[in-house]
Structure formats: C-alpha cells, structure tokens
C-alpha cells in the first residue's frame, strides 16, 4: 500500500429537512431542547397499520423550497426534501457551481429505496389487476392513465438528475443505496472522490421518505417498527432495555465539502474537517447485527485510521442507535471494543431518539449533527432512556445535552444487508491549533 499525502477536506455548509424542523437551525434547536419529532402519522390514514405513528417532516412547503416549477413536477416527496436541504447547504457555504468550475463540482447522494406510490399501484389495480392478479394486457387499455412523469420520478437516480440540474453540478455524480447506511456511505464516497482529486467541491447527502402506505408496509411486515402507538414521543429509546423497534422518520441532510486550503483562502466558515471514512460489510445475516460487533468494529477503526487519529482523540459518537434490540447491542459491543478503556469517557447518543430513523437520509443528517455538535461544543441528548441495559453500558448523554469540547466526533450508520459506515469529523481547532 502506497502511503499518500491525504488532501484535507472541510465541511463549509449544512442543510437539513427533518422531523424536528425544515432547516438546520430549527433541527439543531429541536435536538438541543430534546424535542421529539414523532407523532400520529398524518401523511395518510395509518389507523389500520400495526404502527400508527412516525416522525414526519411538518409544514414543508415545496413551492418555496423548490424554485423551479418544472423541477417540482418531477420531484417526489424525498426529492423535494433533498432540493431544499441542498439549497440550504450551498447558501450556508456561500458558494455554488459557476460556469467556470461546474465540472469540478461533484455530487454523492444516499437515495431512498424506490417504492412505487400507492396511488400508482391503485391505477394498475384498476386497469390491470381488478381481482388482484396482474394481467399485462390491462396496461394496453387506451384509458390506462400511466404518466411518464411518475416514471421519471421513480428512477433510481432521479434525485441525482434533479440535484445536478438544479445546481449545475457537472462533475462526478453518484447515487448509492445501502439501506440505513446510505447517507453515511454517500458522505464517505464524496470524501474519497475529493481525495482522489476528481472534484474540488462536493455536495454530499441523503434523502428519504418512506412514510407512505407502501413504504411503511415493508417495515410493518418485517416487525422492525416500534408499536408503541400510545406513546409516539417515547417510542424511540435507543439503548434502553425496553426498546422495541425503530420509529420511521423522513427528511434530507446535505453537506458542502470543499478543499480545506481553498476554504481557508476564501475565508469560509469551517464547521469541521471531514477527516475519515470507514466502510465494511458485516457478512453476518441480512437483518441481524453481529452480536460481537464484528463488522462495525472494522468500519470505526478504518475511519479513525483514515483520519490519522486514534480512539483516544474521540470525544463524541453519534450512534446509529436505532432502538432495536439487536442493533443497539451490536453497536455497543463495537464501541466497547474500539474505545476499550475509554468507553466510560466517550459520550454517545443516538439522535434517532428525537428525530426517528431517516433511513437513507439518516447518515447524512447525523453527519451534519456531528458538525454542529463540534461547532457549539455540545453533545446532543440520548432521549427517552430510563431502563439500563447491561449490554449497552456505554457513556450515554442522558437527561440533557452536555456541554463538551469535542476534538473529534464519529458518526455511525449500520444498514440492513450488513453495510457499515463510520465517518470521523475533527474540530477545526484541532487541525490548525
């Protein structure tokens, strides 16, 4: 292995649309207040489902968020979150692609799984499967109202197409999906692409919205969601012994990544250095997490090594912490292995306790949260924790957010299918003391 001088990458812009707020500031203040974004599902009538609550994005106005009517037409709910969060991140960074440098701008997104919308399936039902059995001949009925706009919206890289067009990004562009690890892997991919020298600026993030009848069905069938229908705000309780499943959220998070020296030269505010990426595959079972943390351990260690720091330099871990029995146990086993003697010192919280699980957007939103935690010197709270679980005895941030100078933060994302992503963010003061 050839050792190379690693290019330093700065985070200079942040944008979020989450169940706690429709921008980064409101999301962050919601987290600091320990608010919950969960409540009875209003996107559709969920009263017949086994889980009737979720963490929805509220009062989101796509007309203001997406300036182009034409783009809006092609944008699904998750694409709209993405366009809004990306616009916020670029405005926050105070830069955007220009004619001269658009080919040096890249995009890496973690995109949600493309489920066909309930209404579109209803149309197929009406025309091609009236009794429930599909007959392709029905699509040839001249009255079948199949709309190519819906088809476009459903393409696996539709979000990429809309984002590159809206912001004029003409360099490297990619879209990834490794379930709950998607957002983290997208940010990690962006770091790698920049270090290879292919781009000087990247927009990196994730977006998802599965709070719709078809999207939520897959999770209900699998039994992965919390069924605490009487207590939506307390249902997401990562690491608590009584945890019983995750709370489905939705939203988007984006970061603007920039060459460190260029960011310095233009006097940009730098939230953090995106210092390291770790990426592994558990190769255990499709939904089960390895009980001994084998898989997540490699991802965290790789990320620390990539950042050129050690476990001793980390002060905060934004855990994947889904609030499922297995994930939280596996993740704690990994944290204990990596942080060993410091496991009682390193603060850990899962912000899913407040905003739910944003699936493909989770890793990107939580990456943004790490940047804000570093900026403000505050570790967000792990809400709803009451009953200790001996398997999860890590140093959780309990009761309230904790004032804490953070030298480096780790953000974990562990997905169905066994993909693990860890990102390391360093305090800019640690980079240039």
């Amino acid at each position, binding site marked *: 292995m050839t050792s190379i001088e690693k290019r330093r990458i700065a985070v200079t812009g942040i944008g979020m649309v989450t169940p706690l707020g429709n921008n980064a500031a409101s999301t962050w203040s919601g987290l600091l207040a320990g608010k919950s974004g969960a409540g009875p599902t209003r996107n559709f009538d969920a009263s017949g489902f086994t889980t009737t609550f979720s963490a929805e994005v509220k009062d989101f106005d796509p007309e203001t968020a997406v300036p182009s009517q034409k783009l809006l037409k092609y944008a699904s709910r998750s694409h709209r979150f993405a366009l809004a969060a990306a616009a916020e991140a670029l405005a926050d960074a105070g830069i955007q692609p220009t004619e001269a440098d658009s080919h040096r701008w890249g995009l890496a997104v973690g995109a949600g799984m493309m489920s066909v919308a309930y209404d579109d399936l209803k149309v197929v039902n009406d025309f091609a499967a009236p009794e429930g059995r599909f007959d*392709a001949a029905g699509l040839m009925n001249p009255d079948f109202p199949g709309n190519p706009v819906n088809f476009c919206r459903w393409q696996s*890289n539709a979000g990429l197409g809309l984002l590159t067009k809206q912001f004029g990004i003409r360099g490297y562009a990619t879209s990834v*999906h490794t379930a709950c690890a998607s957002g983290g892997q997208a940010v990690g991919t962006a770091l790698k692409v920049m270090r290879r020298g292919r781009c000087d600026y990247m927009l990196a993030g994730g977006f998802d919205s599965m709070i719709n*009848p078809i999207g939520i069905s897959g999770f209900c069938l699998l039994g992965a969601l919390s069924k605490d229908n009487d207590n939506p705000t307390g249902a997401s309780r990562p690491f608590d012994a009584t945890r019983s499943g995750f709370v489905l959220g939705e939203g988007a998070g984006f970061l603007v990544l920039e060459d460190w020296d260029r960011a310095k030269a233009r006097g940009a505010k730098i939230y953090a250095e995106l210092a390291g990426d770790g990426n592994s595959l558990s190769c255990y079972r499709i939904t089960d997490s390895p009980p001994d943390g084998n898989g997540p351990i490699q991802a965290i260690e790789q990320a620390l090594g990539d950042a050129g720091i050690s476990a001793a330099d980390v002060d905060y871990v934004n855990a994947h912490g889904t609030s499922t029995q297995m994930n939280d146990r596996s993740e704690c086993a990994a944290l204990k292995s990596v942080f060993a003697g410091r496991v009682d010192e390193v603060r850990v919280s899962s912000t899913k306790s407040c905003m739910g699980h944003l699936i493909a957007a989770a890793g990107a939103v939580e990456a943004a949260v790490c940047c804000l935690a570093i900026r403000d010197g505050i570790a967000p709270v792990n809400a709803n924790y009451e009953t200790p679980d001996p398997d999860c005895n890590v140093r959780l941030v309990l009761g309230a957010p904790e004032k804490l100078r953070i030298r480096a933060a780790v953000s974990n994302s562990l997905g169905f299918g066994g993909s693990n992503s860890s990102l390391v963010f360093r305090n800019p003061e640690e980079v240039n003391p």
Partner: protein
Amino acid sequence: MKNTKEKIVFTGSGIVCGAGATVEDVWSRLESGDTAVAPFTQFDNEKWPVKVAAEVQQDNRFLVSDRKLHKTISRTDMYGIYAAERAIEESGLLSYRESLPEEEVDRFNDRSGLIIGSGGGNYTSNYDYIPVIAEAKGELPVFGRELANLVTPMWLLQNLPNNVLCHVGIRGQFKGTNACITNQCVGGVLAVAEAASAIWNGEADRVAAAGHDLPFEPEMVYYYHKLGLMSGEAPKPFDAERNGTVFGEGAGAVVLEREADAKARGAKVLGEFLGFGCCSEATGILDLAPDGDGVERAIKEALMDAGVEPSEIGVICAHGNGTPASDLTESMGIRRVFGESIPPVTGFKWAYGHLIAASGIVDLVMTLEMLKRGVVPGIPTLQEMDPLIQPFPVSSDTAKPLSDIALLICRGFGGMNVALVVKAAS
C-alpha cells in the same frame, strides 16, 4: 490524477444475459451476428406495440444452487449473485484464501471489497401489494389491517436494492469496502471504477464489482415505449432508421486486484484497468446535452486518468443504445475527442438488449474478450449509416482493433456519462 502507477488487472469475469451465461457463449453470438432479441415469453405480447426483449433463459436453480436463498431474494439478485460468484470463482481468490495461514484469513477478508451496481428496484415486485389494494377497495385502514394476511413478511428483504451486496458478501466473506450504486444505467461501470479507485487508494487489496438489473417488465416497457425510447426490434445503433432500444436483463461482474498480487499467486489475467472518467451533464432526469458534452468530458477524463493519448485507443465499445438522441450525441462526443481519427467503433446492445444498470459492465466483460481475441464484432443490424453521424467507423462487418487498448462508454439517465479505458492482458 491517480496516486500511483500501480497496475490493476482483471482476474475474473462473469456474465449472464439473453445471449448466454458464459463469456464463450455470448462471444459466439456476437461473432455470428445472432441476436438474442426475440419475442418475449414472460407475458402475452399480442396486444403490445413492443413484442421483443432479450430474456435470460437460465432458471433460478441454475443461477443460484442454494434453494433456501430463492425464497429470500428476487430474480435480479440471482443474476447478480451468479455473475459475481462466477467472477470470484474464475479469479481463484477463494482457493487462494484457503491456502493462507489461518491468522491471515481475517485480514484477507477485511481487505476484500465488494461493489455492486444495482437496478435499485422495479415495478413488478410492488405488485405484491395489489391483492391488498384490491381487497381494501380504496379504504386505507383496511389495507393496513389486511397487509399481513396477504403479503409475505419477507417482502422488504426480498426487494432490498443491496441484496446482491449482502448475499455475495455473506457467501464469500468479502468484508471490506463496499457500496451499492443505484445510478441507473451507469451503476455497473461505476462499480468497476470505484473498485479500481479503492485499490489505487489503498482501501482494499482486491474488489469484486458487479452490476445487475431486470428492466424487462410490462410497466417498464410501457413507459419506455411511451417516452419514445423503445424499438420493436433489435436495436440499430447509429443507423439512419434507428428508433429506440430494447430491454435485456442479466448481470456482469469482474474481479480487480494489483497486477503484482495476481502474479504472486499465479492468477490468470484477463486484462488491465487503466482509468475512468465520470460526469453529469446536469440536464435533469431524461434530457441529454445536445452536443455530446458529457461524453466528451468523460472520455477526456478517462484518457487522462489512464495516461493514454486518443491515438493509442484501438477500439471503442460505444453505449449505442439505438435511440436517436443518445447515439447522435454520443458520436458527437467521440468526434470532439478523436477528430477525424476515430478507431473502430462497435456496440453490443443489438445482441443482448439494454441491461440498464448492468449494461456497461456486461459490455466491459465482452470488451475484454474482444481485446483478447483481437476481433471487433460488427453491428449486424446496421444497414444504412445515419448521414448526421457519418463519417463514423461503425460497420456491420468485423474489424481489427488498432491496438490492445479499448475505450468503453456508458450513458444513463440523470445526464450521466462514464468512460473506462482497459487494455488486453500482455
């Protein structure tokens, strides 16, 4: 642009498509001009304006012998698992691992990467919900209550876009760097580009890359046809009468590693990876830049990455999907790089249709075979060159590559363009 000049080689490949499930079978179709595009059998084509596709002939048991797995994955996953495991098998990496001392196995696994380009989902799998929709008669609460009675609890797991990544990983214990790329048509080739980058940058010592897709479904055919992208016969890239593409299905895969490592373990080398380019035209979901802008930039970036001059390219495997706009702009982009000295150009979609996420990586597997044999198959469906495209060195006859280096182009929705430069094994 890359950090080292370390040579990266291909040591295994796998393929399954309408034209066959081995490189030899697919090559003989390419060489004999015998297209696999034929009237489709998966549903009644009688009322359909499009009646053909290139369907995979092999059944699930042929593709994945472990029948327990059949219940937990979908058919597109079978294609991906089949191709990826053929490539890994051909590379000899698993038997090499068996020869390692036990204490080295964990590190070997942690340094083995897996990157998959996935179609990312499809329409038909969602039809599993239609019986509940029919039952509910527009009443969502009824849909919610009946769900568990009518749909398998495993639905989500059967349809995860990253299933191939998960199962090839579990079966082969490739535990290192990984990704599932859902970037429509360019997913498969981008997996190869990311695999090479991971090795160049020291993130992995070896990576298996695969792309798989099953676009041939009634509703996909319906929309592609409605958008004017679908032909009723085998595609005729660059022909004056070309009128669209035709779906194929299947998967392609390759294994990449350092040449030094391949040599040290005595592996057979299929070719060398030299470089890639990847860019977006920022034109939205369907539109293409009218002047071949992205094609030109992707090729130039790939050549620069490879350290190769345009004059050194001996043959071009074009995306050539047979749609009027894509072929025209692709030829413009090629001309903007090569001027009037364009090497022989060919494309393979006439033979096995358009495999969408798997298209480029299947083309790559066959491009390596083309370089090995020193023969450029013609495009037999080409009858009359498009006057707007010519002069352009495509032909219905076979040709000889001008060198042992090939350029491969892959284009996709989202204004995506990816170019790879590969070389024959020396």
